[in-house]
């Protein structure tokens, strides 16, 4: 035992020592500052695709250049006899177009012998044995004469000279393709360079001994108020969007917008809302009300994990649909199999003489969240590096015992339970009446509070479709109930097919049918890798004693129902000659895509026209 403690301690010590090695706290702080500032300045930049410059490149420099201080300080170490001894260094990465407006500063630590320093930009491959600005695709502002060099050996009078102690900034505006320099926080007007190459790198050049400059790529606050400058352009672009001329077509626009809203509501089956909206705007809804309600009901079934019923309903209401779309049918059946494992599909649920507990843990409920709660156990073991582990075991225990009650009470006190169950009964179809008595009887066997939970499960799963909003409430529930579930995990709950023998047999039989279907499809349409993978994954669930905590357990997550649900919905709509995607989502997707495309074609305004800015 002592030994154990010893080894644990020594391990911890090792870990501690390790972190000490990496951690120059000042450096870490600066690194953190840098990340925060870059994120704030260039929110549209995806650094995985286009990393931002963070230091000078030790590889992309002339030999007369020396780097120090995390590659931020540049000093000259050549002879400095004449211009042939000039030397430059580029930053590690070019300026991404998605910056919109990019800025960096250089402080002149020492002007050295003659102060022949140039600050600017250059493209990859430009000769480094030169000062920035002298060659093609190279631009620079020089300290000795204050001239601006635009890809030419002769400069143009531009600004004042600069020397030791001055802070020179370079701002690239990728929206209007201009550039200007700053001196000690003051803008020096636009540089006369007319056009800029894409993919320019921040560059500095030095030419005489003793010259030292420090770069600031965001490690420290800038002397010039670049955020203020950006705010002007953000406002400009936003007002450009807001004032986009629509001229005579004002009426058309209104109709388009109304149609967008209406079609979105209809698509997702928000029948009552859609009707009210149509009445208020005096517009027509293309699809008839029963059709919307039918779709709504089918969606609810899928989201509740009752895929078998959903398939039946679809076949009954839209005969021929699934027959013509074997892929979709196969996907649905696969899902049905997963739901059987889960114990949610009605084909297995009808077998289970369900205990309150099993019902409580009813995995079909979207309340049940992704795996977070379940992996808790692992965290205890591995967790030395995880911040959660610091709480140790005891607090978690406390949570458990506490949450047992909160889980119940939160469900019973949830205001959404009653209206949503009304909602459910509103959809008066044969299918639901079939299942309704069943769940009602099983509910009667349980305590009152459990019944509320059942209702709650339904409500969330049923009323809310696969939108983001749902995810929101969902997480909320998760926090309240996660631990509750993990407690029950260890007990009787979450058994294969709800722990019922007959149900398990049915599942296995269903699995065989599914296999047969797959083979049939294969014969008919040729091999389909996606199907194979889907089937494999589904069957793999059976290989684990606890499918919920296995590598393919993800499939059991109720979230996974959303994709198939919307695929089914789209297929139904298509079969009715209606758009399979709501135009609103289409427009949103297109806008997002456009903005991303703008970054790729180097149109800088994309950074200030982000779709997120307009979604509230």
């Amino acid at each position: 035992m002592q030994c154990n403690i010893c080894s644990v301690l020594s391990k911890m010590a090792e870990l501690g020592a390790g972190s000490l090695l990496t951690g120059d706290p000042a450096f870490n702080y600066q690194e953190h500052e840098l990340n925060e500032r870059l994120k704030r300045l260039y929110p549209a930049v995806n650094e995985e695709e286009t990393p931002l410059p963070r230091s000078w490149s030790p590889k992309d420099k002339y030999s007369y250049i020396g780097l120090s201080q995390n590659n931020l300080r540049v000093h000259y170490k050549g002879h400095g006899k004449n211009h042939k001894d000039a030397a430059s260094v580029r930053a590690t990465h070019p300026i991404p177009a998605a910056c919109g407006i990019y800025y960096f500063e250089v402080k002149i630590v020492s002007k050295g012998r003659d102060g022949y320093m140039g600050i600017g930009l250059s493209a990859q491959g430009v000769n480094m044995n030169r000062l920035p600005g002298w060659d093609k695709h190279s631009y620079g502002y020089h300290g000795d004469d204050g001239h601006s060099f635009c890809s030419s050996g002769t400069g143009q009078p531009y600004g004042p000279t600069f020397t030791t102690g001055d802070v020179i900034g370079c701002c690239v505006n990728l929206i209007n393709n201009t550039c200007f320099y700053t001196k000690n926080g003051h803008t020096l007007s636009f540089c006369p360079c007319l056009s800029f190459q894409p993919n320019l790198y921040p560059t500095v050049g030095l030419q005489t001994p003793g010259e030292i400059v420090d770069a600031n790529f965001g490690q420290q606050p800038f002397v010039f108020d670049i955020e203020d400058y950006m705010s002007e352009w953000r406002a400009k672009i936003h007002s450009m969007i807001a004032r986009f001329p629509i001229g005579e077509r004002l009426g058309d626009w209104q109709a388009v917008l109304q149609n967008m809203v209406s079609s979105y509501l209809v698509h997702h089956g928000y029948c009552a809302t859609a009707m009210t909206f149509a009445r208020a705007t005096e517009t027509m809804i293309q699809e008839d009300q029963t059709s919307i309600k039918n779709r709504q009901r089918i969606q609810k079934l899928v989201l509740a994990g009752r895929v078998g019923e959903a398939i039946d309903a679809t076949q009954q209401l839209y005969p021929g649909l699934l027959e013509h779309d074997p892929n979709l049918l196969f996907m649905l059946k696969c899902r049905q199999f997963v739901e059987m494992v889960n114990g949610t599909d009605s084909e297995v649920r009808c077998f289970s003489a369900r205990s309150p507990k099993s019902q409580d843990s009813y995995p079909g409920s979207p309340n049940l969240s992704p795996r977070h709660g379940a992996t808790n156990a692992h965290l205890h073991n591995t967790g030395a590096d995880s911040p959660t582990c610091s709480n140790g075991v005891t607090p978690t225990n406390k949570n458990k015992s506490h949450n047992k009650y909160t889980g119940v009470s939160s469900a019973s006190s949830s205001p959404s339970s009653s209206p949503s169950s009304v909602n459910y009964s509103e959809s008066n179809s044969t299918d639901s009446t079939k299942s309704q008595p069943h769940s009602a009887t099983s509910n009667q066997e349980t305590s009152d509070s459990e019944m509320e939970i059942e209702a709650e499960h339904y409500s969330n799963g049923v009323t809310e479709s696969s939108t983001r909003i749902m995810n929101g409430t969902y997480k909320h529930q998760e926090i309240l109930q996660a631990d509750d579930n993990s407690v029950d995990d260890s007990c009787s709950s979450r058994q294969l097919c709800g722990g019922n023998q007959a149900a398990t047999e049915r599942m296995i039989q269903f699995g065989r049918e599914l296999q047969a279907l797959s083979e049939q499809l294969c014969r008919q349409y040729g091999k389909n890798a996606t199907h194979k993978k889907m089937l494999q994954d589904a069957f793999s669930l059976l290989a684990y004693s606890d499918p919920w905590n296995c590598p393919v357990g993800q499939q059991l997550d109720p979230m996974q129902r959303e994709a198939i649900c919307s695929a089914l919905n789209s297929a139904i709509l298509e079969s009715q000659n209606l758009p399979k995607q709501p135009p609103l989502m289409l427009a949103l997707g297109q806008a997002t895509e456009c903005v991303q495309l703008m970054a790729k074609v180097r149109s800088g305004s994309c950074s200030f026209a982000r779709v997120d800015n307009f979604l509230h």
Partner: protein
Amino acid sequence: YAYDFVLSFVTMQEVTATSRHYVDRLFDPDPQNVLQGVIDMKNAVIGNNRQKANLIVLGAVPRLLYLLQQSSSSLELRTECAVVLGSLAMGTENNIKSLVDCHIIPALLQGLLCSDLIFIEACLRCLRTVFISPVTPVQLLYTDPTVIPHLMSLLSLSQHTQEYITQIFAHCCKTPEHQTVLFNHGAIQNIAPLLISPSYKVRMQALKCFSVLAYENAQVSMTLVNVLVDGEQLSQVFVRMMQRDKPIEMQLTAAKCLTYMCRAGAIRTDDNCIVLKTLPCLVRMCSKERLLEERVEGAETLAYLMEPDIELQRIASVTDHLVSMLADYFKYPSSVSAITDIKRLDHDLKHAHELRQAAFKLYASLGSNDEDIRKKITETENMMDRIVSGLSESSIKVRLAAVRCLHSLSRSVQQLRTSFHDHAVWKPLMKLLQNAPDEVLVMASSTLCNLLLEFSPSKEPILESGVIELLCSLTQSDSPALRVNGIWALMNMAFQADQKVKVEIVQALGTEQLFRLLSDPDTNVLMKTLGLLRNLLSTRPDMSSHGKQIMQAVTLILEGEHSIEVKEQTLCILANIADGNTAKELIMTNDDMLQKIKYYMGHSNVKLQLAATFCISNLIWNEEDGSQERQDKLREMGFVDILHKLTQASDPNLCDRAKKAMQQYLA
């Protein structure tokens, strides 16, 4: 044509008839009918200037005011009356005049004492419209001393009262007295919280209030720096309002507030909020992207901000290429606008003068201290030509600004020698001096002083243009500034000038005027007059004509209560006299004067000692006739002892001078 006329005549008749009907209804015995009448009138006048004019002519205003003031009128009726009056005020300036003549202001101010908010707001809205008109005398706001405190108390009522009242204050605060009245009634404490009002209009009007309150007012400015708004310093609130994404009007007004606070000494010129925020903001206002009005205000404010501070001038001169940016101010109306768009041309024409004068002002301020900046300005495209043509423009504002600019540039020796001469700026300048208001004359004559400096190549042609008469007449002006400039220019002119010029000056000025200037109450005038005398008497003066009078004047000044500088200058004159052949006798025969020189040689001020010693040195100079006698006489009077003592002086110049004088005795 005739048909047209008839038609319009008929329409006119009809309008008058309906208008009369509206007025008649105001006299209906049934109050309910009166109310309906007023409401109908309200609907009839909206946006109809002719209808408004008709109603005023037909005497609706006194009746409306009567109904508004009558306590027996229902609150609804009184409110509607105020609304109609407000609508009438929205019309032409003539409407406003008529309303003011009917004593609408006291009536509405009286209405503010009512307790009903809707009525108060209607009164304030109308008052606002009346007061912001240029034809309303602002003094009317201050005649009743209870009005301002009452308005302050109404500020808390609603966003509307806040907007109207601050707008009234912002327009009616025109003099230091107005500032003091508003300040004393707690304007700052009452208005500061409105800077963070949720309403943009309120924020904006509150900001405007502060800009007019702080203008050239140290008391207000000093108070403002210590005000906190929601825990934040007022200067920081202003800085936030200057952010580039704020409306231009707000940025500009906030920059004005900070500028005025800075000029009043409440904020240092090297404070970051001035150097890094206000100055760049004002430079931005001068850019081509801004409206013409904004560019004018921006340039004028910037000129005012940096006038006294060379550092700010240097920063501004390199910010955003301001110097060349300003050159664009002279390109209105542009040739493009003339062809394409009449409206635009009209707009450009209206602002062209304002733009030019603002640019001249800003150039003047930029170049007032730094030689490099002056060079940069004169090298700007066509700059000197623009100034030259500006000097003869019809607009006084432009002429004044142009001459200010020229004056600022004339402080540069290099420019005087080059561009000033090349462009013959003296010609339009002389023309300007012939007939101009005093403020232009002051600047022009001051510029002329610089052009008459001896190294200026313009000096010759100016002399030949008969400037002496003009300058002499300036010395007789009531304005001390003009007298100084006149005599100063003469002084510069006389410096190392030909005897001919000197004689001309003396003749033109006349001894009488010379002596009048020597007793001028303004020290500057006295100093320059002495300077003139000194220059006139240099190079061996011939004192035969005015010797006696000059000696009298010198005695008078040396005996009077004058500053060291004045006395030094006088002793220098004496030294110059002592250098002339015949003039020496004037001193040597004047024992009283010799005693005075002796006194100043022993004075505690080195400058006076030096000047007096110089004088003696001239008297005893060996190579001249009669030097032996003079030496003897002065030795008898004990000057040698004094000189001997002075050879031990700690001041090297004085010591040197004394030794040289002693050598005259030894030789």
